């Protein structure tokens, strides 16, 4: 094996192109390796497979290492969960790795401040305290709380707690899907979360489950959803979504059904009732819905009977279909009953075992239910806990409901130890911080579902002084126990050793190949279950707070998850697709409510619940249910964001702080839908930083759609070619390749992964809230949301917009210095070092995809280490824009030339294409008739944006396919 440590320590600074182009004359040193490493050639990327730990979905990633530093993450194409794709949060993990606020070494509290100390001193504080408690026989006063750790680390931690005699470890996840597990326990007798096979379903009905955003495994399900739903050769599945709020997931539905908050359960039962009544489901399910009155459900939920009937018929017609439930709208006091109803729907439609597969169960099934966490907090408040050890990735001070008063409870704990590697709300309460290595620097494993065991390896040396949590705990444990390495209950020298020992039986010497692959996967035998049919209580959820208040929907942001993504500036600047807002959180208020209260967008509104109050700018939504108010969870800033990118918030803004402490009885899950809030204008204004001027296309047909029937007809007959453009000039000729792209608007779900991937790949700086709001954002690709139809029930079209690489590019001839010109391979080239900055091209680009460096943007250290060495960092005053990942094209051609062949389809993937969970983007050679991009370009759904201007773009869009009833 290679000597990884030596290799990473010696970084060969080989004059990478990534550095600010400017004056530099200081003598520059170049350092050779002391001992050569066969894996690393300076200037050539090495790839290391590991597992993404930004959320518990556990996608496989491969990290691109250049000269000892990771510069880009990509989905591991071999990993069964994400199959090469990666979401925005995964892409932005690099900013956690190189986070400017990362602790460099341990911290010890000294009054209000955390002071740097050395490892021995910090560990001694903890070890002494634990040892003292142990000798006093108070092992139960020691608590260990970590995020969901399914693999060796989890097992190791449990060994550790046993060895030290502490309380059992809590696997704490704010979104733990307790209700789903409870419902499965009730219906199927199985305390697990199954694998939902979207890919095999023909009709999907979601009861609030935001499976394209955060629900369980969003990349996995987005991939599968695209497979099921995207129009291909005349076939397309149907997807219906029921939720009070039009979430990003809901906006991808063929029909979004808006219901009153908490009425999903009755609706599911009503649908089942219709199925039973119409003979679409087995009679025995009638027992469950005997007491259901469809008309009453319709009246209570605000969903017309016709809609219920239509959904029921469509669902029954699916064969196989799939009903899923969850999401924050389904966490109220009736959550378990609602999900039981959803389970019955699946059972009645015969989906169990087909699209609902037990066996490959989700890791979420192993989350400690919220109720137990709540009990721990109560014990803390009673002073029964004297040492609280918090693993990295958990931030209970931020994510636990405000009603639980975690901060107060933590103040009663004698010693709070945190393994967080960057400051957050919890480290503010900690006495000792022992920074864990980032997951990209760590050994480990993670199994997101049965049969998939992902292996984690360090992809680079720690960017800051940090030690793996396992190593630190080993040292602590041995110090407490007074044992030596190799002996006692904790004999391992390092966690790495523990891991390898744990894996030895399963890999049997094939360790290296498992590492290379990123893990070990095997088919898991399905577990047959039968549904128990029993009456379901269709009671509406109970709410705390005044009766005339509005139900608070606190939902996880698809960018920040529970808030852990929010310290990544890339994610802050990738807009929320629905609102197109960056940086700021907001409170989404229904248009009716806003009109009543006289609230306009940007008015600061105080949201008050029995547990607290927060102040947020209003976003008036024409789609939200009037009985609801929605606030995204996870909007917080990292210290380095202020005042660099945003001004400091004036007050608390976390909606979780408004929630009550009570857990749902049946499942022990938290109630994200459990309080009613009142709204009051504060009189202040805080205009939101919204990037999109309007969601109305004004008839310009930028994002186009076609009716499903018409699309089918066209797919059969082909579309008449519209007239070719006439030109006074001869058609340009391309001696070699001609690069082009096809983007399927029908597949795009608006997840922003491409935006962040592009930002990571192309050294796109972060500009901050005010600049972004003022039309100075720099992202090379953006996802536009265009709303069509009725304002309160719009059809949303997501249009990824990037440089169109026009054949007749309006930007090119106006450039006085040839900085913009057409390359021999059909790209629209932009030569930064030639650019004078007249910005004429930016005006003349009808798509406005050219970006100008208004300032000299900074990459605060150590984020500058992440810069892609193959891409120039642009200086102040120059224009930039999408290059179609020219550096990847060059690398792809180089690779092909090494093999003495031409570039073929799939050799070159652009960063946006590579990461796209739904494979909406295809890049290729337009001169190769066999290439996928040409096939798309000839599709009957193909069109060009603003075709009538005659710019002849190299990017072809495919129309979205909409359903008749939508």
């Amino acid at each position, binding site marked *: 094996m290679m000597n990884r440590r030596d290799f990473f320590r010696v970084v060969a600074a080989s004059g990478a192109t990534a550095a600010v182009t400017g004056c530099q004359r200081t003598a520059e040193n170049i350092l050779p390796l002391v001992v050569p490493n066969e894996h690393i050639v300076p200037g050539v990327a090495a790839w290391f497979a590991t597992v993404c730990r930004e959320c518990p979905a556990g996608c496989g990633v491969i990290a691109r290492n250049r000269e000892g530093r990771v510069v880009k993450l990509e989905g591991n194409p071999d990993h069964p969960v994400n199959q090469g794709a990666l979401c925005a949060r995964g892409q932005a993990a690099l900013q956690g790795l190189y986070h400017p606020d990362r602790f460099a070494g341990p911290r010890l509290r000294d009054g209000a401040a955390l002071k740097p100390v050395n490892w021995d001193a910090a560990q001694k504080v903890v070890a002494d305290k634990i040892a003292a408690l142990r000798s006093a026989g108070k092992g139960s006063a020691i608590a260990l709380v970590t995020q969901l750790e399914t693999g060796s680390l989890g097992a190791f931690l449990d060994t550790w707690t046993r060895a030290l005699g502490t309380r059992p470890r809590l696997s704490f996840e704010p979104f733990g899907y307790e209700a789903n597990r409870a419902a499965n326990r009730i219906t199927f007798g199985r305390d697990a979360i199954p694998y939902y096979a979207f890919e095999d379903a023909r009709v999907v009905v979601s009861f609030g489950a935001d499976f394209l955003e955060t629900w369980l495994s969003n990349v996995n399900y987005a991939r599968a959803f695209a497979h099921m739903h995207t129009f291909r050769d005349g076939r397309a599945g149907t997807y219906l979504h029921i939720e009070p709020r039009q979430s990003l997931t809901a906006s991808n539905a063929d029909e979004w059904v808006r219901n009153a908050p908490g009425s999903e359960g009755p609706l599911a039962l009503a649908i089942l009732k219709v199925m039973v009544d119409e003979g679409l489901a087995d009679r025995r399910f009638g027992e469950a819905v005997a007491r259901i009155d469809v008309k009453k459900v319709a009246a209570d939920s605000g969903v017309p009977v016709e809609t219920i009937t239509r959904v029921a018929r469509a669902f029954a017609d699916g064969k196989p279909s799939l009903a899923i439930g969850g999401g924050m709208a389904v966490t109220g006091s009736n959550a378990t009953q609602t999900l039981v109803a959803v389970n019955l729907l699946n059972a009645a439609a015969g989906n169990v075992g087909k699209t609902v597969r037990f066996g490959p169960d989700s890791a979420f099934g192993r989350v400690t239910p919220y109720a137990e966490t709540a009990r721990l907090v109560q014990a803390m408040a009673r002073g029964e806990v004297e040492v609280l050890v918090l693993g990295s990735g958990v931030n209970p001070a931020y994510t636990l409901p405000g009603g639980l008063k975690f901060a107060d409870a933590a103040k009663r704990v004698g010693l709070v130890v945190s393994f967080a590697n960057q400051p957050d709300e919890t480290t503010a309460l900690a006495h000792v911080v022992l920074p864990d290595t980032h997951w990209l620097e760590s050994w480990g494993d993670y199994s997101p579902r049965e049969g998939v065991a992902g292996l984690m390896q360090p992809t680079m040396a720690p960017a800051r002084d940090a030690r793996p949590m396992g190593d630190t705990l080993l040292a602590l444990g041995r110090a407490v126990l007074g044992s030596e390495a190799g002996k006692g209950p904790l004999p391992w020298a390092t966690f790495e050793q523990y891991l390898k020992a744990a894996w030895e039986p399963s890999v049997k010497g094939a360790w290296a190949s498992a590492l290379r692959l990123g893990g070990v996967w095997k088919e898991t035998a399905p577990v047959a279950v039968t549904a128990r049919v029993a009456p379901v209580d269709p009671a509406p959820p109970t709410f705390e707070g005044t009766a005339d208040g509005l139900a608070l929907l606190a939902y996880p942001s698809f960018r920040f998850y529970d808030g852990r993504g929010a310290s990544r500036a890339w994610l802050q600047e990738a807009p929320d697709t629905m609102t197109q807002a960056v940086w700021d959180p907001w409170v989404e208020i229904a248009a009716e409510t806003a009109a009543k209260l006289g609230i306009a967008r940007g008015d600061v509104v105080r949201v008050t619940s029995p547990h607290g109050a927060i102040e947020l700018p209003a976003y008036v939504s024409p789609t939200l249910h009037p009985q609801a108010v929605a606030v995204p969870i996870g909007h917080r800033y990292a210290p380095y964001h202020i005042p660099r990118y945003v001004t400091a918030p004036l007050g608390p803004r976390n909606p979780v702080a408004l929630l009550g402490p009570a857990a749902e009885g049946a499942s022990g899950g938290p109630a994200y839908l459990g309080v009613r809030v009142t709204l009051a204008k504060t009189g202040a204004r805080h205009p939101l930083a919204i990037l999109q001027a309007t969601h109305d296309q004004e008839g310009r047909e930028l994002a186009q759609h076609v009716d499903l029937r018409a699309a089918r007809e066209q797919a059969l007959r082909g579309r008449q070619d519209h007239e070719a453009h006439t030109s006074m*000039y001869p058609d340009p000729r391309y001696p070699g390749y001609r690069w082009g792209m096809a983007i399927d608007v029908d597949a795009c779900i608006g997840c922003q992964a491409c935006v962040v991937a592009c930002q990571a790949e192309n050294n796109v700086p972060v500009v901050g809230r005010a600049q972004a709001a003022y039309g100075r954002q720099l992202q090379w690709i953006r996802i536009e949301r265009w709303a069509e139809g009725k304002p309160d029930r719009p059809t949303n079209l997501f249009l990824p917009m990037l440089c169109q690489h026009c*054949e007749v*590019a309006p930007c*090119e*001839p106006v450039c006085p210095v040839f900085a913009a010109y057409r390359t021999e391979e059909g790209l629209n080239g932009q030569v930064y070092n030639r650019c004078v900055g007249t910005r004429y091209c930016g005006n003349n680009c009808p798509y406005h995809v050219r970006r100008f460096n208004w300032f000299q943007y900074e990459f605060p250290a150590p984020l500058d280490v992440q810069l892609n060495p193959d891409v120039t960092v642009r200086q102040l005053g120059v224009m930039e824009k999408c290059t179609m990942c020219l550096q990847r094209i060059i690398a792809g051609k180089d690779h092909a030339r090494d093999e003495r062949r031409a570039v073929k389809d799939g050799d070159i993937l652009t960063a946006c294409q590579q990461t796209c969970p739904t494979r909406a983007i295809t890049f290729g050679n337009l001169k190769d008739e066999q290439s996928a991009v040409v096939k798309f370009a000839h599709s009957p759904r193909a069109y060009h944006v603003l075709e009538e201007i005659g710019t002849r773009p190299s990017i072809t869009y495919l129309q979205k396919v909409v359903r008749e009833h939508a």
Partner: protein
Amino acid sequence: MAATADTVVGVFAHVDTTVRALEELRSKGYHDLAVYTPVPVHEIEEVLERDRPVSRVRLFTLIGGLTGTASGFLLTIWSAMQWGLTTGGKPVVSIPPFVVIAFELTILFGGLATVIGMAVLGRLPRLRPSPSFDPRFTNDRFGIAVHCAPGRSDSVREILRTAGAEEVRA
């Protein structure tokens, strides 16, 4: 203007007297004379232009202008062909836009050539004033400087004085 020649300068206050003196001098065969006026005066020019060709400044202008046109087209076409870069799907050598450059260069070169022509033909700039010049000539007086054989200055003086010169000097 031989060194041996005499120069007689007459200073006049009026145009008509100046013209009268000029007519008289010309009729007497004095052709080597210079007239100084604060403004160009048609009457004086008329007398003088009778035996002089049109100023050759326009030739300079023509040559300058044509040079400009040619260099405009040469520069644009030649430099466009250096790299052959396509912009906006248009031909590498696009004549219509190049006409603008050629036009501007025509004017530029033509104008500069005109000034050079004027300077060369008008013997400008002069480093020191000619001996017959008088500062009043740029204000409100007219002057006639007559170059004559050394012996004839007296008769010239006489002619000038008779015509109405305020002052006559050598």
